[in-house]
């Protein structure tokens, strides 16, 4: 191949790679932040085209429809965070407007209102997008009796961790959080919840989560934490754990009845609990593990992604302690 052709080919391939990567990034960001403004606008345009072709609603323009959305959007999006505005709701709003539209305002007045409305609408969407990850973290269920808590149960600040027993970063994070809790003198506690990533750690991660629950069921809160500590100490992560050997070994070491432990593992009675934890993790904005939400006494949340250093955990729990 001629060097010139080779160069052209390289540049073409690279440009294609850039375009694909950029498109992937855009898709990722769009998927992360519903409600999708573009989708809403597209719906409006579709409805508008339909309205324009209809003789029943003469004089209706796009701006009028957009203003309707802006006027009614606060009510439409007042539901649970992250649900977004549904297509059906947008359609209903437009239908209502079509029915009510009588052209009561002058063209100039109307356009001014529309302009203000559109700006407010876009600004509101932008603010919602910026705040969304932490808004989602507010969805995290507050610690309850069924939770496994390390440290003072009445501590004013709680670190809720969603973790995967096969994740090497969770293993690293486990030791860091434990030290911060131990040093906090009862002012911070730690709740452990399950988020086994089955696509990356098939079968084992979930089974280990069930095993930890069985340890808790048979030996109480202490046994749960002993199991978790020992498990992270013994195992290599990344789906390389020999669960048939390690799980009974840990059960034996922490003084559980092996037969009961094996029977609990096979029973499937903790599956629902783990599924709920996974759903809760997703609802609180988790994309991977470890995923932590620090909750202050007043309910303010700080979502922390990844195995961040002890210093960061200490600073954030300190910040949460300052909250009233």
């Amino acid at each position: 191949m001629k060097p010139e052709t080779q160069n052209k080919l390289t540049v073409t391939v690279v440009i294609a790679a850039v375009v694909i990567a950029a498109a992937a990034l855009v898709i990722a960001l769009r998927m992360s932040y519903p409600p999708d403004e573009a989708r809403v606008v597209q719906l409006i345009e579709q409805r508008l085209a339909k309205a324009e072709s209809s003789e029943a609603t003469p004089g209706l323009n796009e701006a009028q429809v957009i203003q309707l959305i802006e006027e009614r959007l606060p009510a439409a999006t007042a539901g649970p965070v992250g649900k977004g505005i549904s297509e059906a709701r947008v359609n209903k709003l437009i239908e209502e407007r079509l029915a009510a539209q009588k052209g009561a305002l002058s063209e100039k007045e109307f356009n001014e209102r529309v302009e203000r409305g559109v700006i407010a609408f876009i600004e509101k969407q932008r603010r919602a997008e910026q705040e969304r990850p932490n808004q989602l973290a507010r969805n995290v269920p507050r610690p309850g009796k069924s939770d496994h808590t390390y440290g003072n149960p009445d501590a004013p600040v709680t670190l809720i961790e969603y973790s995967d027993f096969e994740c090497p970063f969770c293993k690293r994070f486990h030791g860091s959080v434990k030290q911060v809790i131990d040093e906090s003198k009862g002012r911070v506690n730690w709740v452990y919840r399950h988020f086994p990533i089955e696509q990356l750690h098939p079968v084992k991660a979930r089974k280990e989560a069930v095993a930890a629950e069985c340890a808790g069921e048979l030996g109480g809160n202490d046994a749960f934490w002993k199991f978790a500590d020992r498990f992270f100490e013994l195992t290599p992560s990344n789906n390389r754990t020999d669960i048939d050997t390690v799980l009974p070994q840990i059960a034996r070491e922490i003084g559980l009845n092996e037969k009961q432990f094996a029977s609990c593992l096979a029973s499937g009675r903790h599956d629902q609990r783990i599924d709920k934890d996974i759903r809760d993790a997703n609802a609180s904005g988790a994309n991977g593990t470890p995923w932590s939400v620090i909750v202050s006494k007043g309910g303010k949340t700080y979502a922390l992604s990844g195995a961040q250093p002890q210093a960061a955990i200490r600073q954030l729990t300190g910040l949460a302690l300052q909250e009233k």
Partner: protein
Amino acid sequence: MRSYLGDLRTAFAHVFAHAGYIALASTVALATFLFAVWFPNFALMGDVFRTPGVALIAKLQIALSLLGGIVTNFNPLSAGYTIAIAVLFGINAAMIVYLLKQNRAMAAGQNFAIGSGGLASGTLGIGCAACGSLVLSTVLSSFGAAGALALLPLQGEEFGILGAALLLVSVSLMSKRIAAPISCEPSPARAKQRESAIASRRDRC
């Protein structure tokens, strides 16, 4: 290989003889590094900085402490290519500006494309690949193919390595351009025509 290293040395001597380019490369490299390490916690940082009644120094301490994530939240491979991408992107940016200032926009444009490809690919590799690469897992799950990550031998880290490699190619190509003297060169076809014309004239004599 030796000529590549020679070009690289010459290009570095040309570009980084000026303090301005060193500052530019360092700034871009630092910004890229900060972006990569803070990326998983941008929302948290925004929230911390918006919290009223907290001293700015405390807020900055949180931001700084999150930088330790390069050790705790990355494995040696991902930390290595993250730093490499940041440094190479900084060098790339300085070289592109140098070429543009010399009115060699064509060369700068081509290499900007390669460099951007490297950065985009590197971005896909950001995150805890073993536990769900941040960008990639979101992209794949949106197509219902999150499990595809597990099929990759390095579970998504390939993109980071590819990013560093593309940036290295870009730096190497630009070094060659910078090391070459600025002159008007005939195309290879024209040079051949010229040589054969001279040869035929010699035959006639």
